[in-house]
């Protein structure tokens, strides 16, 4: 999978690329409007991570041209503007997703994978990982062939883990993933804890291995020990 990161903040672009490369993606980078425009239109990328405010122009212009020439590419807008108009306009112009800065890399990764799955694996909405078979459409989990009944949030949590295997996932990013950005009012960390505990128990009850490790104070890691 080829990805282009169009982002003028070099440090941020590098952090994104480092994370994505370990996920096995092939990453390119562009730091200005012109170079982004050129790379996006000349090469064919599976997904483009696009910042809106770029030196030399508005990222939405790149999106417009790209959708004319190469409508198959996925686009995730990453913007610091938090502007609703930009979001609506971006999605209208054919962007697949919109992420406000600052974001968690684990969240970006989960969105990216979900986008690629939607775009390139139509029909086969299944993820397999070790003893797990997850059907995204049906929202079901089979562990060693046995059905595990999960709540909606538990299922979302599992998908988030599966998108970021072998990574430390912070409790902050889990909270945001499950409850959205606005939930600054609810202190839900101990809730996350009991949620993860339930998920873990449900999986182990069906004979699944304990994949979810606690990283003390930090969060969790979904991995084979």
């Amino acid at each position: 999978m080829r990805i282009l990161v169009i982002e003028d903040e070099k440090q941020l672009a590098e952090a994104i690329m480092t994370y994505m490369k370990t996920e096995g993606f092939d990453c390119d980078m562009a730091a200005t409007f012109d170079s982004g425009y050129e790379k996006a239109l000349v090469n064919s990328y599976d997904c483009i991570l696009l910042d809106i405010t770029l030196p030399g122009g508005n990222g939405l212009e790149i999106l417009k041209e790209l959708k004319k020439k190469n409508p198959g590419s996925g686009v995730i807008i990453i913007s610091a503007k938090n502007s609703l108009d930009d979001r609506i306009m971006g999605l209208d112009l054919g962007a697949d997703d919109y992420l406000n800065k600052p974001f968690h890399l684990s969240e970006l990764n989960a969105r990216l994978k979900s986008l690629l799955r939607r775009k390139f694996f139509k029909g086969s909405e299944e993820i397999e990982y070790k003893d797990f078979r997850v059907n995204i459409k049906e929202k079901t989990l089979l562990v060693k062939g046995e059905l595990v009944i999960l709540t909606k949030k538990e299922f979302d949590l599992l998908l988030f883990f599966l998108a970021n295997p072998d990574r430390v996932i912070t409790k902050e990013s889990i909270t945001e993933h499950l409850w959205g950005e606005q939930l600054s009012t609810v202190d839900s960390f101990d809730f996350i804890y009991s949620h993860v505990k339930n998920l873990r128990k449900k999986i182990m009850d069906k004979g699944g291995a304990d994949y979810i490790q606690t990283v003390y104070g930090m969060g969790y890691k979904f991995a084979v020990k």
Partner: protein
Amino acid sequence: MKLLTRTNIYFIGITLVVFSLGGEVFYERVHGINKFDASERLEQEKNKIQSFVNINHELPGNSISLGDSVAFSIAVLAEADKTGHVKLYNSSEKEYEPYQTLEFTINSGTQLYTAIIYRPLLETDDLTTAIVEAMLIIGTCLFVVLLLSNFILSKLIWSPFYKTLEKIKTFDFTRESLVEFDKTSIVEFKTLNNVLKTITEKIASDYRTLKEFTENASHEMQTPLSIIQSKLELLIQSENLNAEQMHEVQAVYEASSRLAKLNQALLLLAKIENNQFSNSKKIQLDELIRNKIVFFEELIKHKNISIETNLEAFSIQIHPVLADIMVSNLIGNAIKHNQDGGGISIVLNQTQLSIRNSGKPLSIDPEQLFQRFQKADSSSGSLGLGLSIIKEICSVYHFKLSYKFDGKMHIISILF
């Protein structure tokens, strides 16, 4: 106290003082004239008697109609004229009445006599009553005229002032930048309007600049925050950190997450204040609340909170994002500040939405509850901005937000 009431009170006071003093002076004057007049008359009568006696060499008796009573007695020595006052009993009116007297000696040629003429004076009581009555009538008339003219004049003269007052009372510098005053020809009011115009323009422009600054500053912070967060996230993945280092990184990560959240909340507040959520749509509030309860279902269960709702179908005109944030924050707040096993009750009718939740009494002044950075518990992870955001949204749509604690339940109500 109203300006008009205050003026009227002064008018009553002034009228009372002027008319009691005036009444006093008037009384003295009338009384004086009355006495002077009596003395003159008595003198005239004395002259009449004198000339009668000089011609006839005898006392007048009853043959002269004098009008006033006169008494004669034999005198031994001639004495100088004496005036005096007596009170005599009037049998028909059954009271004593004042008389002025003139006592003089008269010589009939053969005999000396002392004559005393009595002339009735105006009765003091009658005089006082008459004057007080007159004063009261004149005073009341004058007062009524003053009241009326004051009322009419204040309507006329003060109307630009009241108009200005009304304008400035309703002027909201967070929403509008200009206030236009009506033209007036009165110099004082002109000055007042000009001063107010300058002040309000200054306030509004300062306020705008400040808001823009807040928004721009928040925007500018997003990018460095992104870099910090993403770099930390990479650092966390590193296998080479020992437990102590991991602990340090964790502290930094938590602080930066908090900062990011804080920044987002401030940005949201600035955007609401800068009217960036201007498109409103009809939002079915009962439906939105039901959806949010489902959204929070697991959190509610986790805290063993029982929730009861009584939701009438009701819609409001509001920006969908703000409606979402408002309801999320209200319910999130009711969960967060609840105790384990507590309760939440949500009532929505055609006039208001009220959310009650059990929980500890507030440790801060309820008056300050909706102010920014007010936290019931400073050690909690709360930013202290949730309720300010609700307040800001309510103020945009002119909803009335209120808080009450009835000893057990915290009640937050929004009156539409």
